C-alpha cells in the first residue's frame, strides 16, 4: 500500500531524510516516532505527493509518485486523508461546510454531500456541532472535524502529523481512540508523533526516526 525504498530527501542543501525504507500494509496502524526535526512530516509529505524524493522511490497504492502526472495527483490525494497539528480548517465555514467541502471538490451531488458529511461528523462525534464555526469549537473538537473531513472520502490511509500536538492529555487520548476506531474499520493510519507514550500500544507498529534516519 505505502512503500518507501531507500528514500533520501535534500532541500536547500540540507539532508532532511536519508536512506529510509519501510512500508505500511493495508489496515495497519503505524506510529512514526521521533523528535522534532527528525523528518517525520517530510515523510508524510512525500507520501502525499507534496514533495518528491531526491533519491529512492515512494510507492502509493503501487504507483511510484514521481511517475504520477501532475494532473492526476489531486485524484490520488482524495484517497489519502491528512490531518495536522493545527487542524487546517477554513475559518469562514462551519464544521459541516468544512467536511462537505472535501466532497464538493470531487463534484459530488448535493444529496450525497449532505449524507456523507453528516455520516462523517457522526463518526467523530461532532454531529451536534455541525453548524458551529472553528472559532466556536475547542481544540479537540476542531481536530475531530478535521478527522471527519479526512475520512469523508473513505481514504485507504489516514496520515496524521502530530494530531495531538496542540491538545491536552484527555483530548489527546480521545483523538487517539478515534483514530484507532477508524483503523478498525479498515483504514490504515500512519501517525507522526514525538510522544513516546503512544509506542507500545496494542496492535500498532512503531517506526523510529532520528536525524532523518531510521532506527
Amino acid at each position: 500500500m505505502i512503500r518507501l525504498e531507500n528514500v533520501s530527501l535534500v532541500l536547500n542543501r540540507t539532508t532532511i531524510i536519508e536512506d529510509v525504507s519501510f512500508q505500511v500494509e493495508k489496515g495497519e496502524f503505524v506510529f512514526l516516532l521521533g523528535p522534532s526535526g527528525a523528518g517525520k512530516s517530510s515523510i508524510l509529505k512525500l507520501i502525499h505527493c507534496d514533495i518528491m524524493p531526491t533519491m529512492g522511490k515512494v510507492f502509493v497504492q503501487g504507483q511510484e509518485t514521481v511517475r504520477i502526472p501532475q494532473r492526476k495527483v489531486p485524484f490520488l490525494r482524495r484517497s489519502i486523508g491528512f490531518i495536522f497539528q493545527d487542524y487546517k480548517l477554513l475559518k469562514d465555514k462551519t464544521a459541516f461546510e468544512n467536511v462537505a467541502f472535501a466532497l464538493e471538490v470531487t463534484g459530488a451531488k448535493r444529496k450525497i454531500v449532505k449524507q456523507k458529511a453528516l455520516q462523517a461528523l457522526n463518526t467523530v462525534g461532532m454531529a451536534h456541532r455541525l453548524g458551529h464555526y472553528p472559532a466556536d469549537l475547542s481544540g479537540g473538537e476542531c481536530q475531530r472535524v478535521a478527522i471527519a473531513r479526512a475520512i469523508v472520502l473513505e481514504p485507504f490511509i489516514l496520515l496524521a502529523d502530530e494530531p495531538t500536538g496542540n491538545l491536552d492529555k484527555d483530548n489527546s487520548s480521545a483523538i487517539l481512540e478515534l483514530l484507532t476506531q477508524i483503523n478498525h474499520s479498515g483504514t490504515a493510519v500512519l501517525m507522526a508523533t514525538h510522544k513516546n507514550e503512544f509506542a507500545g500500544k496494542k496492535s500498532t507498529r512503531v517506526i523510529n526516526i532520528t536525524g532523518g534516519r531510521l532506527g
Partner: protein
Amino acid sequence: MIRTRYMTLISILTITLALIMIGIVSLLTLYATGIVNKIRGSEEVTVYLTDELSDGDMLALDETISSMSDVQSTRIVSKEDAAREFERMFGSDLLSSLETNPLPRSIIVTMAEKHRASEDMKRLADRLNGVSGIESVDYGSEWVSKLDIFILIFALVEAVLFTIIVTACILVISNTITLTVIARKEAIDIMKLVGATTGFIRRPFYYEGLIQGLISGFLSFALFYGLYLWVHYMFTDLDVYRFMLGFEYSGYISYSWIVDIMIPVGGVLGVLGSFIAVRRTI
C-alpha cells in the same frame, strides 16, 4: 479582506477610465476618417467670385461654366445667401458685429457623374483659375492627401496608445487577482489538501477577473454614452457640429459599435488579466 476589496475597486475604476480613453480616441479617429471620406467623395467645386464682378458678368460666367461637358449643374450663392448659411452653421453673433458682409459670392458647381474623381475636379479648377472675375476655386481634394497622412499618423498613434492602455489594463487586473490569490492562500492550500484539481482552484479567480472586466466595461459604456449625449445636447444647434460629424444627427451614437464592444472588451481584458495571475501563482 478589506484591502483586497479596495484593490478590486481601484482596479475596476482604472479599467473603466482606460476603456473610456480608448473609446474617445477611437471615436475621434473614426470621425476624422469620416470627414476625410466625405470630402473625398464630394462632387462639388466652389468658385469664389471677386467683388468687382458685375451681376451681368456673373450670370454670363455661370452660363459658361454650366455648359462645360464635365459639369452637371451650377448654383449661384449670393453674399446674403452666404451670410445666412454662415449664421446657420456658426451662430448669428459673429457676422452681426461686422460693418460689412465679408463673404464673397460663389458659384457651386456640381460635377457630372463621370467626372467626380479628384483629377477631374483639379482639371476644372485649373481651367477656371485665372479667369477674370474668379477669386479662387476650392474643390477640397487638394488637401485630402495631407489629411490622409494625418489620418495615418493618427491611426498609428491610436494603435500605440491602444496597445499601451490594453497592456496596462491587463497588468492592473493581473495584479489585483494576484493579491486575491495571496489573500486566499490558506483556503487554496486546503483545497489542494483535499484533492481539488488545479482547474477547480483556478476557476473562481477567472470568474472574478471576468466580473471585474464586465463591470468596468459596463461603467465605461454608461459614462461614455452619457458623455456623448451631453456633447450632442450642448452643440446640436450648431450646424458646424453636424457638418463635422459628416452625417445627420439621429440622436444615437453614430459609431455605436465603439460603445457596444466596451462591455465584451472589458470582459476579455478581465479574463486575460486573471489568466496571467492565476497561471503564475496557482
